């Protein structure tokens, strides 16, 4: 199998204004994915990573598992500190970039100035904690890195209020429930997981969570937190809740200040604006990961995707293009898999909220294993959500990604010869058969 290299990705890779040094700001999924891509394309080029943190790459997705005690503290770490050197990546630990100068092609940290030929900004995002009364008290936490989890564990929480019910909120709720905490989730919107699931599946998930003892209040927002030196209770617009810990999981802010100060344009939603090659408006500067504003693969609308897979994908594109390749980012496609007390909850593509469109057709089904719903627009699958089902989803994902018209699918399924050739549709048949009717 041929190993990918720079030449195979684009013939017109221009080697005369040779790119010798690539600087990557950040050490998250996107930054690491970019670095690895560059390395796999070109073993000689100098790659410098500048990271604020002092820890190697970790997967934020495993943080709740660590919090619950299902995995050890070392499990979330994907790389070991010396992996960077082994890969030939120069890692500048614990330094934050103060300034980017596009004219001289340099970045300046507190202690040094580094030249770059291409720059990749992957500064990520930070948890949004509103400036409320008491949000600075001891006992307020966010879930961003391993140290946050360490801090929560050291705090020995008993009664926890989780603000926000996105995937992080829900996972942390289950994790803390596992630690025998009394957990309350507050969601501002009228249902949990509002950006990921529609009403029906979200309701079912909420039911499972409540049946396991997690209290959920939707349509409420936290207005104040009180306590002497540490969190003792919280007030929503409807009630007071006794708690010793508050976990803020209600959205994030893009870390765009550095880019903004260098004159890089931001999008309407507040992320760094990039084109389909992950390029910013300034030449030789690329951006990827949580800090950028990309477009949705299915709807084409601008979106702030905060998913691990999206960051990895964008990092790959940015990394390759920083070398002079011309890869095109197809857009962000949501894929969220949640374990809800042993039941697998899956959402892919867009949900109803993201599709506010009248032509939307919704197919729902219930098997003895679980529930599923498919959103179809213009004969193409736009979204899929399920609870309790693990088989046949890959094919749906592929059909959605390929934007395959359903009439083509129906044609293939009605022809045995074609079906054998396109046999990968078959596990998804229970869903696809329903669409025909």
């Amino acid at each position, binding site marked *: 199998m041929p190993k990918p290299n720079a030449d195979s990705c684009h013939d017109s890779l221009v080697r005369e204004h040779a790119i010798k040094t690539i600087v990557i700001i950040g050490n998250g999924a996107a930054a690491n994915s970019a670095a690895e891509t560059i390395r796999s394309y070109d073993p000689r080029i100098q790659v410098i990573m500048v990271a604020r943190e002092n820890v190697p790459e970790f997967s934020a997705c495993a943080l709740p598992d660590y919090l619950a005690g299902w995995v050890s503290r070392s499990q979330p770490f994907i790389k070991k500190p010396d992996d960077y050197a082994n890969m030939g990546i120069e890692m500048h630990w614990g330094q934050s970039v103060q300034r980017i100068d596009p004219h001289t092609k340099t970045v300046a940290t507190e202690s040094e100035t580094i030249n770059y030929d291409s720059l990749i900004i992957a500064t990520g995002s930070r948890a949004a904690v509103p400036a409320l009364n008491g949000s600075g008290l001891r006992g307020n936490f966010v879930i961003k890195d391993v140290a946050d989890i360490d801090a929560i564990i050291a705090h020995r929480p008993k009664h926890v209020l989780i603000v926000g019910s996105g995937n992080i909120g829900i996972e942390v709720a289950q994790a803390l429930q596992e630690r025998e905490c009394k957990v309350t989730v507050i969601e501002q919107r009228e249902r949990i997981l509002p950006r990921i699931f529609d009403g029906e599946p979200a309701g079912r998930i909420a039911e499972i969570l409540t049946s396991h003892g997690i209290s959920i209040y939707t349509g409420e927002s936290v207005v104040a937190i009180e306590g002497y030196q540490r969190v003792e209770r919280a007030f929503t617009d409807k009630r007071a809740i006794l708690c010793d810990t508050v976990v803020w999981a209600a959205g994030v802010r893009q870390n765009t200040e550095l880019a903004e100060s260098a004159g890089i344009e931001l999008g309407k939603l507040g992320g760094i604006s990039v084109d389909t090659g992950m390029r910013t408006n300034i030449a030789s500067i690329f951006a990827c990961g949580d800090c950028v504003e990309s477009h949705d693969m299915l709807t084409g609308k601008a979106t702030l995707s905060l998913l691990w897979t999206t960051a990895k994908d964008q990092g790959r594109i940015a990394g390759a293009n920083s070398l002079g390749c011309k890869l095109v980012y197809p857009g962000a496609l949501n894929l969220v898999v949640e374990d809800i007390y042993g039941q697998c909850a899956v959402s892919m593509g867009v949900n109803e909220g993201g599709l506010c469109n009248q032509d939307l057709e919704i197919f729902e089904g219930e098997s*003895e294993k679980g529930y599923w719903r498919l959103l179809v627009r213009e004969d193409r699958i736009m979204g899929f959500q399920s609870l309790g089902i693990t088989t046949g989803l890959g094919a749906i994902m592929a059909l959605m990604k390929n934007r395959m018209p359903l009439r083509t699918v129906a044609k293939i399924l009605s022809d045995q010869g074609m079906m054998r050739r396109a046999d990968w549709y078959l596990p998804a048949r229970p869903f696809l058969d329903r669409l025909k009717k």
Partner: protein
Amino acid sequence: MRKSIGYAGLILEVDLSEQHLRVRELPDDMCRGYLGGIGFNARIVYDQVPAGTDPLGPDNVLVFGVGAMVGSPFPTASRTEVSAKSPMTGLFGTSNSGMFFGIQLKNAGFDALVIKGQSPTPVYLLIEDGSVNILGAAEIWGQDSWAALDILKNKYPGAEAALIGPAGENRVRFACIENSYYDAWARTGLGAVMGAKKLKAIVVRGRQGLSPHRTDSFIEIAWKARQLIESSPFFQPFKSYGSMNAAMPYGSFKALNAHNFNRGCLPDWKENFARNKVEELTKGHIACQSCIIACAHWVEIREGPYQGLKMKDMEVTPTVSFGSGCGMSLEACVKAAEMGQRYGMDMVSAASVMAMAAEMFTRGTITAEELGYELNFGDDVAMLRLMDDIAHRRGLGDILAEGAKLAGQKIAGGEEYAMHIKGLEMPMIDPRGRFSTWSLGMLTNVRGGDHLRCRNPIENLRYNENKFAYQKERFGFDQKMYEALDMPDHLKKKAIDLEADTTDIAIMSRWAEDLINLFNALGVCIRPPVEHKIGPTILAEAFTAWTGMEMTAEELMCAAERIWNVMKLFNLREGEKTEDSRFPGRFYQEDGGAVKLDEQQITRVLRQYYQARGWEPDSGRPSPEKIKELGLD
């Protein structure tokens, strides 16, 4: 999840009257003494069904016993035995089927399933990874078995089901229990027992895997067994044509049932049913769990009145029974097989009863007025119509649904056309054309007129000679075949006379019965390539590696013999007599294109068989010594 070794380790008892469930541990001595499958069934039915029980009453017990080696990659290990007191014979009713039901039941945690009592309303049983539910079957009761299966499989994806069709619900005496879409526990009317219990289906789904006791050696033995089977000369033909292989030689011996055993073979049989015809209709093979042969074919009918029919078919038994027995065309045979599956009827018995009706019609015993239509041999449409009538017990079909024996008694002058032994309709082979171990096996079979419990493992279909006065059949193979046969030497010397080139039918019958019993206990298939090459020696090795219970070849055969004796004792308790082991009168009075049978000679061979079994030659009862030897006292 529990990790099981060899056996799942539990027996599930369901009482439908009380809606009560009980789970018993599988005792070790049960495993050693009765192995599994038919062995468990024999013991449980013998112990739990009192003498004189009404087969269709609440006291009859229906047992599903999974073969001991099912769930392993041992080639062809897939089979499950179902037993109860038969409504057809009033004796031990039992039937064997493969596919995936057995492995699912075992993976769901049970080696055997015992069903007692009678539900007041239609129910079905759902068994899933150790959880058992009795559920209302209003939705599927009354549906044909395919429609019911569609509903169940949609509801429980990945599950397997044993279920009955309308015939079972209507207590047609020869109703069968369907095993998924195309297979069945067909013979001896077990579907009627299930229907009488108002149990529509048993749905099983399991995920608890089984582990061999010694993985490496088991893998090695299973692979050796596979190579042995593949080395059999019967392997390739069976792979290509399945059981249809036997039809050609038996046709040329005039030993195939034609028009209700009026003749030994139809003249056009070769053109219409030869193997090339099979090739024309079939495409692709279908296998049971772990099978390397895949003898079943996928049949698609592309033209004619039955165009568009697609199913797994082309088994020799239904094809000959309908095709030659009733004179139907090959395409109509497939249609009849489809109806048999949907209605859930034993096709051998159904075809026999239909042929009987056709003969009665031709001879004027019954009239077109009684029937509602004319019924001649070879009239596909009328035959299929009659089949429909039988399944729904309409008109004369109501009487015929009682089976050949009872219908013969109810219809004046019908008795002589009822082709049954001990109440079970005879299958497609005609002993007048060829008297062999197979034919004697029909007389000695505990379940009545049936050919599947005794077959010479080295039957030679090239020769057919009648000069041995029913005592011998031609051996016809070379020294190498003789040596390769896995049989204790002293017995082999007695059974096969190499110099005279003969096989002793009585001794070989006993051996073959025990061998097949062993296969049915372990869940291995009895297809000729397997029966030919797999003997007790390798089975003992495999059994030991799989379950961790040290058993020798002799001990396995002894267990098989014990099982046979228990079934025989059950039959004797139910009043079976030596006179019952008799072919229908026609075989002694008409030659059927070959030769008439000689009753005295056959009785003599039967006595030899009883002696070979260690039974009393006059009464055909296991002697007290035998009973003691087998530990049944």
